[in-house]
Each structure stands twice: as C-alpha cells, then as structure tokens.
C-alpha cells in the first residue's frame, strides 16, 4: 500500500482492511483475541508518528504490540518473524521511502512467508515510488473528503479514503472511495472507474490470472 508520509491514511486504511478481513473470518472463529504487530522503521516513525492507543479502534486497542526499528533491514526481519508467529492475528508494517533492502526479493520473501503461515501482512510504504513488489494486492491510498456528520456539518466526518487497487493477482483493479462506518468498511465506486462492489472484492475472484498480475 502506497501512501503519503504526511498523513495517517496508509496505516488507517491498512488497519481498516485488516479489520474487515478479520471480520469476514470472524464467522468461523468467534472472538479472535490474538495480538497484532505494528512494525515501524525509524524514518516512518519520524514521518508519521507513533500509534496512539486512545485513537485505535476499540476491539484492537489492547492487543497491539508495537516494534520500532532503527533500519529498514531490521523492520523486514521483524515483519518476517511476525508472519511466522502463529499467535498473531495480522501484521502491519510501515517503511518510509524505497530502501535498498526492500527489493523484489525481500518482498517476495515476505509474501511467501505470509502465505505459508496464513498471517496477513499489510505493508505501508510512505512516500515511496511504486517499484517492483510481489504483494498480492497493491493499493495506492490517499485521503478523501469525508461526508459531513449529521449533527455537526462543520466537523470532520468518519474517516474516508480514496483507494486505488492498481495491481492485484486475483482481483480486477479499480478505484474506490472507502469509508469506515464504525464496524466495517463501506465502499462507493469512484465515478470514473467501473469497478465491482467491495463485497465482491473480498470474497470473489476476478478473471485475471496470476501471471497477468
């Protein structure tokens, strides 16, 4: 997921997507209380700050384990260790820029580990060029103007993002405006792009083959 460094969009959208994915799984597995990991390297920490407990979603607040690393190499190590751990619900990584350590090999390593152990990884790249990567879904995220709340139209509303899925192995790429409506993600397709519904995005699979992605 590619996002700008001067806003919390990337991490917030990653968190929302992770929650949404957990929510879908929650029907099978009632009350998942496993902790989750948030890895940040030093540059990302300086650029976009630390997670703030009172601002996190209520069900995830007490389960956060935060890792701050000095270098992107250490961050990649921490991500991989987190993926290998069976007691973690999901892993969020934040790495700023295009460090040399995070090349296609490292990215492939991470996605293989995530697939092998069945732990979801949401890697947020702050202020980064969209270089080669082997992620199953590649998003470009930006903030979008939120809908005005009903009782105070002057106030900022619920978090809204404009997200572009520009490369995915099994889904049709598209462009959506995603909104966090309290417990799940709601999607409205952008006017310009003819894209499937978001529910379809999570469950179904598109026509594109792996090789084409």
């Amino acid at each position, binding site marked *: 997921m590619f996002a700008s460094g001067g*806003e919390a969009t990337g*991490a917030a959208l990653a968190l929302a997507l992770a929650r949404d994915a957990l929510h879908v799984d929650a029907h099978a597995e009632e009350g998942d209380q496993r902790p989750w990991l948030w890895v940040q390297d030093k540059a990302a920490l300086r650029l976009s*700050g630390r997670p703030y407990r009172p601002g996190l979603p209520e069900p995830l607040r*007490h389960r*956060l384990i*935060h890792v701050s690393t000095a270098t992107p190499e250490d961050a990649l190590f921490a991500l991989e260790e987190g993926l290998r751990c*069976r007691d973690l619900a999901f892993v969020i990584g934040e790495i700023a820029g295009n460090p040399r350590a995070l090349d296609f090999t490292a990215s492939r390593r991470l996605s293989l580990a995530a697939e092998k152990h069945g732990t979801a990884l949401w890697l947020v790249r702050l202020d980064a060029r969209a270089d080669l990567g082997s992620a199953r879904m590649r998003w470009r995220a930006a903030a979008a103007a*939120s809908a005005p709340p009903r009782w105070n139209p002057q106030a900022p509303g619920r978090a809204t993002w404009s997200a572009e899925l520009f490369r995915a192995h099994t889904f049709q790429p598209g462009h959506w405006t995603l909104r966090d409506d309290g417990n799940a993600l709601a999607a409205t397709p952008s006017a310009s792009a003819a894209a499937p519904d978001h529910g379809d995005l999570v469950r179904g699979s598109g026509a594109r083959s792996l090789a084409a992605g």
Partner: protein
Amino acid sequence: MAIWCADLALDRWRLVEGCARGEGADATPLALIAETAHGPRIAALNAAGAAQGVRTGTMLADARTLCPALAVCPADPAGDLAFLEHLALWAQRWGPWSALDPPDGLIVDTTGAAHLFGGEAALLADARAQLARRGLIARAAIAPTAGAAWALAHYGPDGAVLEADNLLERLGALPVAALRLDEEVLLLLRRLGLKRLEDLADIGREALARRFRSRRAPAANPLVRLDQLLGRVPEPLLPVIAVEQPMVQRRLMEPIRHRPLLDRVLADLAEDMARALEGRGEGARRLEMAAWKVDGDVLVRRLEMAAATRDPAHMCRLFAARLDDLDAGFGIELVRLLAPWTEPLALAQAELDAAAEQHGTSLAACLDRLTVRLGEGAVRRPLPRASHLPERAQRWAPPLEPMPGLQEDFAFHERPLKLLDRPEPIAVIYEAPDGLPRLFRWRGGVHEIARAEGPERIAPEWWRERSTVRLRDYYRIEDSTGRRYWIYRHGLAGDGRGGAPEWFLQGLCA
C-alpha cells in the same frame, strides 16, 4: 545467638589487602572514609590510627590535623552488606536460620541445636574459633531472646551464655544502649538520667508508655524494646534464605577457538540447562552465558526472555545472535550457563496434533527473537494511563506485561490514530485574530482548513507541572483535500504566560 563483627569494614579491607592485624599496611594509621555532603568523613579506623587520637565520625580534614600520616581508603558499605549476607548463609551451620542485623551483626537461631555441638558454651567457642579463622573480630552471645543476645554481644562480657530465668536481673546492669534504640531516644534517656536497664524497669510501665508514645518503629520506643528483650512480645526477624540458581557448565579438554565448536558446546549446555530446569519445574526468564578464556578473561552474554522457557533450541537460537562479536582470543576453556531469574513453569503435555505445534512460532518465542536482535526497548505495547494530557494518556510497557487494573478507561471524545513524538510547530494565517486559522503551513506544504471541530480545551496537570505551563485548545480539522489532523493552540492571548500563542500539529487522524 547474636554475632557482632565489631570491625567488619576494616576486617574486609585486611582480607582484601592480605595483611594480618597490625602488620603490613595495617601497621600505619589508616581510615576508611565515606563521602558525605560536607566532605569525606571517617567511617572506620584501625588501631594505629586510634592510638594517634583520631576518632571515628570526624571529618577527614580534622583528622589530618591530628595525624598527618593518616592513609585513607574509600569505605564500601554495599560490599560490607553483601559480605554480611554471605556470612549469614554460612552461619546457618549453627542453626536452621539466620537473619541480618545491619550494618555489622548477625542473629542465628540456635534453639534446639546446641546439643549437636556439645552444649551452648561449646557452640559459642566453635563460633568464635570459626569466625577467628575467617579473620573476623567478632563477639558472640547466646540468650533466650534475640534482643537479649544482641545486648550481651554488644555490651556484655565476651562469650556470655544466658539461661531463660530472671533475664531482667542478669541484664539489669547493661546500659540502655543495649536496647537497640535510636540516637535521639538514647539522648533523651540520658537527659532523663536513665542509664541502665534496671533504671528503666524500676520507673514502671505506665510512666514509660506515657512518655514514649511512638509505636511506629520499635527502635523509637524503649518499652517495646524492653519487652522484646525480656520475651514478653514477639520480635519477628527476616531470615536469609539461599536461592540456588540453576547452573550448568562444561570444562573443555582443548580450548576452542572456532564458532561451530562453541555452538556445539552451547547446544549441549542448553540441553543440560533444560533438564535442570525441568527437574525444578521452572523456566528461565534470564540467562547468562560466561566463557572463560585461556588468558583469564571472562566473556559474558546476557539474555532476557519475554516468558519463562526451557526450550533448548530456542535458547541456542537466541544466543547465536549474540555470539557473533565474541572474541575467543587464544581459546575458550570453560563455558557456563546460569539462569539468575527463573519462574515456575509446569510440565505441559505436547499436543497430539503435531502439525499445530510445528506450524509457526509461539508469541513468546517471536518476541524473544525480536528483542534479542532489536534491543530492549524496541518491542513494546501501549497501556492506558490515568491522564487527560494526550501524550501522557498512554505509556509503553514490555509486550507481555499484564494490563493494569484501571477502574475505567478515560472516555475521550475523538482521538487521532497516530501521535507525533513531539508536536511540530505550524505557521498559521488567521482569518480572525483569535479563533481558528484559515491556512497553515506544515513541513513545507500549505493546508487550507475546510472543516473543523473544537476547541477541546485541555488544561495542564497543575498538580504535576509548573504554574507557568500553558493550556491547549485542540481542534480536529480536515483540509481541503480530505487530510485530517489534530492541531492545538498553545496558550491564550494575554494569559500572562509568554507571548502570542503558538500553534502545533500533534496528531494524524485516520
């Protein structure tokens, strides 16, 4: 039995120097000094120094005028206490338990143990002989209560043994200082003319109870101390108990210089340690590996685990990361593994479904690996703290620390997802002189405020901070492109706490 090592600090110094009493370096005047706020003060003094007229407790400068040749060494009270602890454990040869009596005494419970040494007098003689063999000047006494034994050891005849009957008559001639009282209480008693224990017993309990009302500490109340001395009230003592640390070691026939061999030795040690821990039903939280080199140097590596474990493979893996910078020099001849901190860890049945065990690592193992590579403070979790100041509302704790018992969380209105480590100043352009700005500039970009909510006024914590700290007015804003921030104005115009208020950006909202 009470043992009083009258000259403990100097005896330790002599043992370190390796000289006998009154010989070698001890033949010249010498003082051990303690640094105080007013300069060095003499903490202990040897016999040659005392003969020159120097007294313990005087300032070093004053003592130097009396005896210019006075040599000084720094005193080591912490070392003395550690030595005393060792001595207390060693003194359990005369009784089932012993207690410290800092700074320089011991109490040993010899109840029912004296006949093993051939009577109380023989036991006392044995104790004095053994202490003398260790080079300690000590006085010892046996009495029915700890207080009476202490009084006899400090103020009675040397080697006194007291029977149980008529304690007061036999101890009546001792000075009141034998009651283990504070300095000011002793001073008061001296001013009252009460010099001996019998004086104190003669004037009656009511008078003493009326005069000394403090019952906070026994040392401040002569009546309590007198009752303890006579065995009328119990006196609980804190026994010293040896805790055995699991330790395994390998002496190597040939010094090893290469890493694969060391890994092999470490794997063997980890197996041994796992067996030792399993026998005790414990798991290690902290491990210490020490490698003795041929040239006498000792290399030490320490590990701390997030949860108690005794998995040898896990130990080896964690140590492997710490051994890369080990310089073996001419070779390592002894490797020792020690577990200074252990926690109970029950034997658990291995899961029948082996696939579940082998798939992935456990959380504790994962955290250990991260901590070993990334350092102590890198892996943490946020815990709530009862404070309404945004940056103080959470604190960072080790990842497996349990949640503190708070009555309820503070229900904050809306908080940002992320907080900058330190608020960054922003340059603002006002629409109205006080109120919300229209534009602000942050990190080189200009943001136009489209919508805002606020202010939420957060006052400083006056019970903790100085009175000049300014309050903050927080606004939740959204700029024209939809980015949401949390900004605040530091102070009010004309609040008398500095100049014009400044604006800061503290949080990034989802």
